């Protein structure tokens, strides 16, 4: 496999990965992450507005994280505090984000500056290795994605906060009995999920260069499928995202080479792959036991 293709796959996968990492936090705490799509979209919008108003990458990322977290807060209020159905709440915030970002785009000045592409940053020495070298020269936001993945994985497995979070998704009553606050854990996890998915949306906005209506176009749902295929583990989710990235990179490659595959069929591919893989994983995947169950 050529490194170009792998690099393209990583590029396509990184927004999905950030969202999926957030989704892992949310679902391991027991809240279905159907709102990833809206969180990403809000993040992409935040990135475009933040970098235009604040002038630069950092304000853009911060605004993106805040916008994603705001959607997370809505999910937390309705699904965790008011104990509404997680799935329907997620769907509703996705529409809310779609409406709010479209509305916001029309209120914003029409000459929003585009997001300048960020130059790849290489790891010295490693990026000079023949053949695999190009893998070690990635845009800064891809490095950010990798860093977030490591932090989420370490947090979940090696910290007491991570243990409490996982316990909340499996048996919230036990957490309560041990003196913990399952509701607070869930609220924080969902907000953190929004924050990370918002960053994912920001990465997407930087790749495209600007914000457009509904620019996530279902990527949040693919991130959701990835974290399930990846069995609610950050590493597994990341691999699944790279898998989708490869499928899409391959699709672009095929299109560019003019093989003449039907473009609509090719666009269907990620969703068909997701459904097929979910079907294959099937019942063997065990979700967090208390997921979707309202707290007493």
């Amino acid at each position, binding site marked *: 496999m050529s490194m170009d293709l792998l690099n393209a796959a990583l590029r396509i996968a990184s927004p999905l990965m950030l969202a999926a990492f957030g989704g892992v936090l949310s679902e391991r705490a027991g809240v*279905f992450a*159907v709102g990833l799509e809206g969180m990403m979209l809000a993040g992409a919008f935040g990135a475009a507005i933040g970098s235009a108003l604040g002038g630069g990458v950092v304000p853009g990322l911060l605004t993106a994280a805040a916008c994603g977290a705001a959607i997370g807060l*809505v999910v937390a*209020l*309705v699904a965790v*505090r*008011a*104990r*509404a*159905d997680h*799935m*329907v*709440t997620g*769907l*509703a*915030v996705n*529409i*809310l984000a*779609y*409406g*709010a970002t*479209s*509305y916001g785009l*029309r*209120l914003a000045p029409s000459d929003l500056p585009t997001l300048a592409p960020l130059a790849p940053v290489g790891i010295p020495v490693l990026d000079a290795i023949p053949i695999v070298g190009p893998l070690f020269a990635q845009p800064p936001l891809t490095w950010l994605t990798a860093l977030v993945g490591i932090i989420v994985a370490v947090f979940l497995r090696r910290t007491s906060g991570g243990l409490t979070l996982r316990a909340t998704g499996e048996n919230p009553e036990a957490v309560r009995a041990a003196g913990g606050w399952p509701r607070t854990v869930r609220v924080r996890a969902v907000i953190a999920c929004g924050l990370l998915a918002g960053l994912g949306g920001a990465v997407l906005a930087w790749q495209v260069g600007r914000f457009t209506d509904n620019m996530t176009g*279902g990527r949040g*749902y693919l991130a*959701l*499928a990835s974290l*399930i295929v990846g069995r609610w583990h950050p590493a597994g989710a990341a691999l699944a995202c790279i898998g989708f990235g490869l499928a899409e990179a391959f699709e672009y490659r095929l299109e560019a080479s003019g093989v003449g595959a*039907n473009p*609509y*069929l090719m*666009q*269907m591919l990620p*969703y*068909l792959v*997701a*459904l097929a893989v*979910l*079907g*294959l994983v*099937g*019942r063997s995947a065990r979700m967090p036991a208390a997921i979707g169950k*309202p707290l007493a």
Partner: protein
Amino acid sequence: MTPAALARRIAIALLAALVIACVLIALAGASPVQALLAMAAGAFGSTQAIGAGLDRSAPYLLAGIGVALCFRAGIINIGAEGQIALGGLGATMAALSFRPGNAAEAITVALLAGALGGAAWAGLAALLHLGRGVHEVLATLLSNFVALLLVQLMLAGPLGEPGAGFLQSPPLPRAARLPLWQSIDAHPSFALGAVLAVAASILLRRTRFGFGLRVLGASRPAARYAGFREKWLVAAAMLIAGALAGLGGAVEVLGQRHRLVEGFSLGFGFRAVTVALLALLHPLATIPAALFVGFLETGAQAMQRQMGVPSALMLMLEAVTVLAVLAAARSER
């Protein structure tokens, strides 16, 4: 919670949505009072406007009944969007290929083909869910995207109008188009939906099958213990919902568009969910709920034309209403 308390909470939720709307309209630089007046005039100002609102509400009603039935059974079927798309596709294919002389026959065949298309699409999701254990939300959500692309694929290929420049089918033969009721300037689509809403209500409240759905929604173990065949009930509910959504797609194509157009079903799926939730999952109450959503939309479009307030406002209002109703309806359990 008593029904009265619930109704009060929902009224408060709608009022909150209205206040938010006013703030957003003011943010866009328009006068909220004038904008809301423009909205009311656009929705109810003339016979024509009322007819348009009824026609707009019809697919939401048809699909919403099915969503309500599924939700009542605890099946979170988010697939109405794809089922509506396939319903439109089925109706178009039937209308374009059969050319019987008599209109009643052509319309019946096309409507049935639409219902069949929607049911078939829901059946695929049900198969993934029941056969392979894929969560129904993911199965239906992801298949929505496939359905949308499938319609595009057909329009770019065998069903497309040559040289149109858009992804659309040739116009449907007159015999297959729904008749227009001149006195109210509307098609019989909404009336069809209302009849089916009554039928669904009877089904849910008066039949063994409906009882099974309600038990299933209350507790799956209880349904199993009571001897209901869980999988059969789930499959049947999803197929019925698919057929209803497919009918929704069919009436949109046969009554409104008179041809299949790319993206004709965009956003319909969420409105069906909105209708079901606003109706608190009671099939009969989907009738006023669908009217609310449909007239809100025609009103918002008129407001956009006259005042320049972006129509994305409507999406936000729908989402806020759904969230408020969700929060209001469940928080005391």
